[in-house]
């Protein structure tokens, strides 16, 4: 097991290095950079020398490979360089927003699991009944409704019917847990609904598959309570693919956060990312892409670990 973990961890390094090279090159092949954008914003004529001076300050006059090395060497020390737009260290910019986004992601995952596992199991047990049809339509709807629009609708409902506005500033959990949760539960619901849809469908098909197994017939034949058959025998064995899909869908969660943070005016990583992209803040974009890819790969690694822990057969493959 230890060897398996170590192997998987080491395999992450070349992938992340590939991501870093790819994103770094992509951001630099195309014309137009932050310096031009900054001066374009002021509307005044910018002399060539001023542009060159600014570029030199940001290190943009160096050859690409040199820029890349400066960036990559800092990463193991958690130094991602400085933001080209604000001039502050990127690690700092990310750190002050990370808590919010992580909390939102965790809450959305909770919402998704709490919706999907019971609904998916119910639909599978009552296959082809109206309950099944309802759950299937509910989950396809979850895949279809954009999370940002769901967010807008939620806010609208609150404003019109309850005269409640989402607070403008973020309250950390340890300052006031109640205020914090009541602020984040709605964006978590908006993102979590979409997230739950895929997991519901997976739970349904996995439970259906398991219910056809011989040991389920045996369990029923020995007169076991139906509830015990479903929960202890079927659901437990059906959870593996569900956990896998939750890991895979984490990528969509990240995407959901990017748009939902805009709607709820939450100053998280997603908002930072969109800002960095519209400002052509290369160092910020490349660092955030690397970070999200790392989180994505790491979550899938964790999922594999959980699967290997739950199902010893996987370890020996």
């Amino acid at each position, binding site marked *: 097991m230890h060897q398996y973990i170590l192997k998987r961890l080491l395999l992450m390094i070349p*992938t992340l290095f*590939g*991501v870093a090279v*790819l*994103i770094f090159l*992509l*951001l630099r*092949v*195309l014309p137009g950079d932050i310096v031009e954008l900054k001066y374009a914003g002021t509307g005044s004529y910018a002399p060539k020398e001023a542009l060159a001076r600014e570029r030199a300050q940001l290190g943009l006059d160096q050859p690409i490979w040199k820029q890349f090395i400066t960036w990559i060497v800092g990463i193991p020390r958690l130094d991602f360089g400085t933001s080209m737009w604000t001039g502050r260290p990127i690690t700092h910019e990310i750190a002050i927003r990370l808590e919010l986004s992580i909390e939102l992601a965790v809450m959305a995952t909770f919402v998704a699991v709490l919706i999907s596992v019971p609904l998916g199991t119910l639909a599978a047990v009552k296959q082809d009944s109206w309950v099944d049809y309802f759950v*299937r*339509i509910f989950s*396809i*709807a979850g*895949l*279809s*409704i*954009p999370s*940002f*629009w769901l967010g*807008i*609708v939620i*806010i*609208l409902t609150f*404003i*019109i019917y309850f005269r409640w506005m989402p607070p403008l500033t973020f309250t950390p959990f340890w300052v006031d847990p109640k205020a914090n949760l009541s602020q984040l539960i709605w964006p978590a619901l908006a993102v979590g609904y979409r997230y739950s849809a895929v997991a519901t469908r997976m739970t349904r098909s996995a439970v259906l598959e398991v219910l056809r197994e011989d040991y389920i017939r045996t369990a029923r034949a020995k007169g076991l309570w139906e509830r015990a058959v479903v929960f202890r025998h079927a659901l437990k064995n059906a959870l593996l693919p569900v956990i896998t899909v939750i890991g*895979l869908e*984490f*990528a*969509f969660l*990240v*995407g959901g956060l*990017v*748009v939902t943070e*805009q*709607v709820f005016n939450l100053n998280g990583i997603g908002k930072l*990312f*969109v800002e960095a*992209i*519209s400002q*052509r803040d290369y160092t910020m*974009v490349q660092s955030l*892409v690397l970070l*999200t*890819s790392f989180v*994505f*790969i790491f979550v899938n690694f964790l999922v594999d670990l959980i699967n290997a822990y739950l199902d010893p057969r996987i370890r020996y493959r």
Partner: protein
Amino acid sequence: MARSGAKTSTLPVVSRLDWWLEASSRFTRQRPLGAVGAAIIGIMIAAAVLAGLVSPYDPLATDYGKMLQAPNSFHWFGTDIFGRDVFTRIIYGSRTALWIGFASSFLGATLGALIGVTSAYFGGKIDLVLQRFMDLLLSFPLVILALVVVSLLGSGMTNVIFAITVPMVPRCALVVRSSALALREMPFVEAARALGFGPLHIIVRHMMPNVMAPYLIMLTAFLGQAILLEASLSFLGLGVTEPQAAWGLMLRGAAVEFAERAPWMAIYPGLAISLSVFAFNLFGDSLRDALDPKLRLP
């Protein structure tokens, strides 16, 4: 679909039209939900093609005398901050959504299928290199990859199509490759090789037609996602640009700021997105069940 037509040739000769009618009525009977999806898609396509005839106003005509009007008998879905008719803009928006949806899923699925089949046909080093590269692309979350591509190319229709295509390619390549791996060992591929046909001919003429099922499944699965992604990009201001009518764009800015005074601006475009993606998902799901129930999509 010539291949499927060929299968029925042992039966009394059936014309292609009859075959299609028969197949679609069977699909409707066996998968009513999928048929509902197909019907909504049909209506959308009709609305998009006939937008000029169906819609009562000009989608770009501003009228400051009629700003933010609530839905009434002249403006069924109300008007926006520039006095433009929301209903008209939703009809025209279906053009944008469908064009971007079809173009990017077609490009993404086709490129992905070509890469998947090529990778399976050659195997060895080519397969390894292509697969590593696809894995690399897969380790970017979908929206992030699309956003990066848009940020590189700038916003606008063509660039949005390209941005949505890129994240779709590796997903399709993965699925198609696993179907094509079995094909490589098939006698007809060997026969084609023995007849002296080159790899290009074998890949395009002999292997591609045989991965049609996963290809079509991926294509329809992408359609809904592509429309959703376009809406997200436009909503973030990184997709289609004003004054073009696009559903995601209609939800941006004023729709949120004036949501309290003019909720119709925020409600209807979102409903249009949800309904169309819902239709594509219903149809895609049923199509997958009909063509290959065992296929698991990533």
